[in-house]
């Protein structure tokens, strides 16, 4: 069944022909439709980069903010209106580089948002420089002698900070990616899906073929086993596992812990100014 609920008509997509982003976009739209969501239930939030163009290519509410800051915007949107399904999308440079500090602290904060990271291990928008996830020795026009820094390991970092849903997907496996996204969206709390994505223009090492040969689907893995998940996350050489490495339910997400909702369940946009409470606070200053 072809579900076109999240399709946006009359658009010109500026991704390169063959880009893995097309496949991820397709998986996202199908996942949301299969979950029974509508474009009015969902806010897609992004920063800057090729992946961050996603909200302009599908039908839903959208917030395309600054480079690196999507998780801050997304956390706040969820906190201001917990009824919204908030999905923060971006690339490895956007989420792990420019937004690295927010990545760390969003995992700790645990808002009920879904974080999809299109990880192609290279910068696309700025034309081919190394990204935080590029492996050592990866040569580019700017890293002429190859990358010197150790690659950023998003899965291990997220696990070490207490993330309650950590998964890895591959754009080329559309059906599997869709299923992982569905679980991530349903998860209560912060959910990270790092999605291997081939960049056909600037990454000639990590191609569709390379990812096919260097990944495998997790089977018989205990998602509640933190140590096993960490071991998988820390693999430096392939093959890399695809699927949900870790999932733990039952931890209250950020927005449910807020004092703002203790007495009043309405989203913030429906609230009047608390004049009576303000007058009481003021009165206390006269005593």
């Amino acid at each position, binding site marked *: 069944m072809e579900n076109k609920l999240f399709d946006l008509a009359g658009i010109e997509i500026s991704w390169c022909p063959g880009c893995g982003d097309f496949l991820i976009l397709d998986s996202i739209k199908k996942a949301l439709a299969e979950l029974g969501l509508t474009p009015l239930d969902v806010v897609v939030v992004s920063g800057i980069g090729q992946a961050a163009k996603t909200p302009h290519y599908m*039908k839903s*509410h959208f917030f395309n*903010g600054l480079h690196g*800051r999507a998780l*801050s915007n997304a956390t706040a949107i969820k906190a201001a209106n917990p009824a919204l399904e908030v999905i923060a999308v971006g690339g490895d440079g956007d989420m792990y580089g420019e937004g690295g500090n927010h990545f760390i602290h969003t995992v700790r904060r645990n808002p009920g948002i879904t974080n999809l990271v299109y990880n192609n291990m290279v910068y696309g928008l700025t034309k081919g420089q190394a990204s935080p996830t590029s492996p050592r020795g990866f040569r580019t026009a700017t890293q002429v002698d190859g990358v010197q820094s150790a690659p950023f390991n998003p899965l291990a970092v997220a696990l070490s900070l207490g993330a309650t849903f950590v998964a890895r997907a591959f754009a080329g496996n559309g059906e599997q990616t869709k299923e992982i996204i569905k679980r991530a969206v349903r998860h209560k709390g912060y959910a990270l899906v790092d999605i291997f994505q081939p960049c056909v223009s600037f990454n000639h090492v990590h191609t569709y073929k390379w990812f096919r040969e260097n990944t495998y689907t997790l089977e018989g893995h205990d998602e509640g086993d933190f140590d096993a998940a960490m071991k998988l996350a820390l693999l430096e050489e392939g093959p890399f596992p695809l699927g949900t490495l870790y999932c733990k339910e039952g931890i209250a997400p950020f927005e449910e812990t807020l004092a703002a909702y203790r007495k009043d369940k309405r989203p913030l946009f429906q609230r009047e100014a608390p004049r009576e*409470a303000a007058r009481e606070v003021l*009165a206390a200053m006269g005593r």
Partner: protein
Amino acid sequence: MLFSSPAGRQDVCCVISGAAGLGIQTVEDMLARVIVDEGFCVFGSREYMSRVRGGNNSTELRVSSEPVDALIDRIDILIALSRNVRQNILERISPHTVILGDRDELKGELEDRGASFVHIPLSSLAKEAGGAIYSNSIAAGALLGVLGLGTEGAAAFYRDRFAGKDDVVTKNIAALEKGYGLGAPLGGEGGVLAGRPRSKGGKKTILNGSDAVALGAMAAGCNFVTAYPMSPATGVLSFFYRHAAEAGAVVEQTEDELAAINMAVGASYAGARPMVTTSGGGFALMAEGLSLAGVVEAPLVVHLAQRPGPATGMATRTEQADLELALHSGHGEFPRAVYAPGTMESAFRLTQEAFASALRFQTPAIVLTDQYFVNAFHNLDESALQWLEEPSLLPETGGDYRRYEDAPDGCSPMGVPGWGKGIVGADSHEHDEVGHVYEDFHLRTRMQDKRMRKLDGLTARAVPPRLFGPGNYRNLVVCWGSTLPILREALAGLDRDDTALLAFEQVWPLAPSSAAMLEKASFIAVAEGNSTGQFARLLRAEFGVKADKKILKYNGLQFSVEEASAMLAGALPAKGGDR
């Protein structure tokens, strides 16, 4: 008579100095409460070093029958809790200052200064009372004794403040009474305040600048506050954490200022009424986010509490040097409003106004305060606080909703995601009416014009400056922000019938009516707390009016009334003369 100085003066000025960590703030709160409950007016100002323990900080308390609201240099009574009293206090000790201190602690310091030095054995009495931490209550008791204000009010304060900790209450009250016994005989019959009129009822609310801003925000319906702690802006964050449930506000201490402002903009998009609170260094980090609020047309209020820069500057001191930062922060061009309240009443009202204009024009508004202002407090009548109109709730969107629909005043109807049938978009790029990135040079011009048209509305709404003094002035003293009460008192003391004060409490956009008020003067002096005359420069750029004199202070401390008075006397043309 020991205390000859206060006789015949409008107010009695008491200063308590001591190391950080001695609990001076509790004592300060207590004394203010007692003074007000006893029917007097109080003004307080605190200056402190950037350290948790040690050093030497001070609190000034002006006590008067009539309202007082400005910092002065004169010290009538100095209570020194710790040695190593700093130069800024020593310079203020006059031949009329009576000093109370413990000879054992001060080790000879201050004994040859002022009108007289009175030894009070704080250390030994504190030991008897239960430990060194009680020295502040003994000192406070001594001051209450000198003033003749009784111990009942103080005891009630301690019972309330330390409710449930009976031992702490009992020991503090005992310490207070010991001090009172020492102080009362010094103050003469009925104490230093004897014979001064007291008012019963009214003016019982004690408000500091930080709480005035926070309460104004709460009154305006602020329901989302994010910040990274930074002196002197943290008080507003603490206020909202304390009152988050009653305010119905999401309050979060973020990992950095970038997160703070980007959360605020995201929340604004979702229909919250957000505020961030920060100081210059943190605000510098927020610049890109401010620009984002401009282009996505997100209502947003920034509380910017200034302290001296550049960079880390002086963390706990005051300055007015971030005016130009507030005016120009953020790349590209977008409309904004900047308020600079001069009084507690104004801070309450103008913070509401900042929310109102941010919501009305869907753009950032900045409330500029400073360390002096957020820490200063005085008593006032609750009825003096103005409550502006409450914000109205946002309507539901229709199916054909477009977030950036063109509008004559530049303000597209605001809708939020999850409320109505429309798709709500926002984009940091230049965008079309829906909010999608679209590069078209005609669209760009149209959208930029749409956003900037909002500046016309903001200008029409701008709060005009306040004039104090004769309407037919020849000379005009101009100030902005927290210096208002100080210059007002300084100018009143000069008794000039040819000179008025023009105090700006909105510094962008400037009310067009200001031009005529400035042009009417044949001499203009601009007084401000920075080294280059930023506001004077703004007046010249906006109105072509050049300041004849700039009165500047930038050593980290606020102008005092006496200092402003001397600077004005030196700057103003001779009475009746030409410049």
